[in-house]
């Protein structure tokens, strides 16, 4: 059998993605032993592995979007489900190391129109950041602002560095680079949502920690 470049590339990526998925499930099945060095090493491995899986999925999406804007497939979804889904994933990733809460403002409607997969991808970026930097807890919220659904991830970390808040492009050093990539992607996702001319937005600020807000029109 012969491969052309595209086939080989696609097959390779998919195999890696599958294997990473399996690796992640395997790591999940290692029970904590109540021994600090062992448990924290396993924990970091799990987080890192899940981070790589999530990043790989985003990379595949971005790769497709290189020469064209991201086209969201908008449908009606429940913000309530989305928040709970992200809360469950965050709780499972943190394994009790960080307290995870979710809150839904009463004025949030039962359904809203957005691309579920893309929005969850953006939120997972924020979750990975918060899990890396938060001291003790993170909170996922849904609320309404300026006619938009706002999905928020807030934590008690030292907050975003000034250059990120200033909207600067990612620099090339260590953690900030990763954060920067994820945030850029989240911004693309937010801005790809459009309702009668009103575009979605990513808003970042610090308030007793980092606050990541996705505004969906």
């Amino acid at each position, binding site marked *: 059998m012969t491969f052309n470049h595209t086939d080989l590339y696609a097959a390779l990526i*998919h195999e890696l*993605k*599958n294997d*990473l*998925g*399996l690796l*992640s*499930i*395997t790591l*999940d*099945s290692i029970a904590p032993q109540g021994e600090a060095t062992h448990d924290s090493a396993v924990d970091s491995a799990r987080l890192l592995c*899940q981070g790589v*899986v999530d990043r790989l*999925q985003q990379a*595949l*999406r971005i790769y*497709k979007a290189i020469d064209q804007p991201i*086209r969201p*497939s*908008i*449908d*009606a979804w*429940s913000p309530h*489900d989305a928040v*709970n*889904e992200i809360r*469950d*994933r965050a*709780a*499972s990733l943190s394994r009790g190391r960080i307290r995870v809460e979710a809150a839904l403002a009463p004025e949030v*409607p*039962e*359904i809203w*129109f957005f691309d579920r*997969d893309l929005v969850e991808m953006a939120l997972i970026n924020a979750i990975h950041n918060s899990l890396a930097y938060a001291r003790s807890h993170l909170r996922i919220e849904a609320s309404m602002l300026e006619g938009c659904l706002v999905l928020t991830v807030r934590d008690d970390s030292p907050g975003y560095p000034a250059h990120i808040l200033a909207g600067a492009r990612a620099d090339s050093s260590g953690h900030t680079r990763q954060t920067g990539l994820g945030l850029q992607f989240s911004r693309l996702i937010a801005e790809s949502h459009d*309702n009668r001319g009103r575009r979605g937005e990513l808003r970042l600020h610090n308030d007793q920690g980092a606050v990541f807000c996705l505004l969906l029109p």
Partner: protein
Amino acid sequence: MSLDWVGSDDASIDYSALRALVVEDYPGMRNALRLTLSNFGITKVQLVSSASEAIYHVKQKSYDFILCDFNLGDGRDGQQLLEELRHSNLITIETVFIMVTAESYYEKVVATAELAPDDYMIKPFSPELLRSRLESILLQKWAFRDVYRHFLAGDLEEAIVACDLLIRGKPRHLVDALRFKGELLVALGRFEEAEGLYQQVISLRAVPWARLGLARSLHHQKKDEAAEEVLRDVMEQAPEMVAAYDLLSDVCLAKKDAPAAQQALERGVAISARTVRRQQRLGEIAQNNGDLDTARAAFSNVLEKGLHSIFVTPSDFGNLCRVQLEQGDLQGVAKTLKENKNILQGSPEGQLVVAVAQGMAHVKAGNLDAAAKSVEAAAALRASGAHGDANLMLDLAGTCMVSGRLEEADSIVAEVARNAHDSESLLAKARKLYDESGRTEAGAAVLSKATSDVRKLNNEGVVLAQRGDFKSAVEKLLTACGEAPHNPRIMMNAVWVILKFIDQAGMDEQLIASARHHLNEAERQAPGHTRIAGLRLHLKEVENRFGIQRKGTA
């Protein structure tokens, strides 16, 4: 479903009662999925590695939840499995089907397909994600339980009433209920109401499926200019939505623009080549347009991509051979028949295709003795009940004419004409056969007799019915059904007058059984015809009125 619901409306799910089937060809992933499911209490899990194994198990017992990988290695893929399960009624709308895919592109391609899964998961996914997706589908199915019950019983009107209850009382399910109601309205032929409904959804948000639904409702009301405008718009916003190209091709055909219809399907095929029915349609239209290369490529694709699809029939082999013959490629025909020998020999219909194609090839090669033998083989198969599609029968008639078997040819043409007395394209093709063999006048006589017999019986039946003499109308139309046993229009008329007769004169068990049979046959010949749903409804209503309880007549 064997779900234990607690309370009347706030359902909580008992995962331990849920019967799950996991279809995944990769052993490592299979076991990981079992572990994942057991993590949230699903322990009744059957693991299988292929579509055929899945079908075997689904036939043995029913499952509440099927988790299926799209890519299953050799054999049927996940989508073909889903199509077969739904099409053969092995699972109903109540069974949860979640497709696992390697990339998000799949969703866009099938999102508005007739046979879409309940949801899809992009690999790899976390256990929490699967759990929350499953839970939300189960809760949705619970909310829709009355809608589904009426739908499965064939009571589409009642299903609409149940949708309206959700639309009014459950904001959470508003959009899903509108979507389902739109499909019911279209199925019932209530296109104007459907148009209004889709406009209502679009006023909430112009989601592609609503615009597609709007275009479909417009097309059925013969507002094809407006439909085309909506579709062009959808394509600009969501170019990967292949269902839009299929509908656009129907719209173009309605506007008598066959080249544009072909172009639309070609664009659809360029996005997703693997849908058998799109390729079949493309082949058909391209051949009518005289674009034989495109037709040949499409018909070849049907056989190649549809190797494991239930939508591929012996007719598809006949279609490819017909184009190859038209191109003068006798070797190609021989190759097609040889490569697919096992499949074709497996059924009388397949054997008939082989006999007819070989007969035509022999005629082309000037080998009339061999052609005569093929014609004899075909005659024997027909005598024992094998039936081919109209095009194949006309091919056979042509070969008969060349071999001097004129009477046989005339009787085959007459049969085709009786079964398709209102199909201009088939009648034109038959006329061409006679022109080519220099028997134009004889042909005109055969065709006019065949069609006028059926038309006469049909018209007399309809006139009698209009006068209120349903008894005589039933007699006329059942005679017509006997003459033209594959004519959908006649069969639908027969069903209609039988139901009117029973309305008037009371129940007649034998006639209602005949109505049921003819309606099924009409649907087989003309799937999705706009009159079918209305007749089904009427039939159901008559059955209910006279206390006949039948399950699954939908």
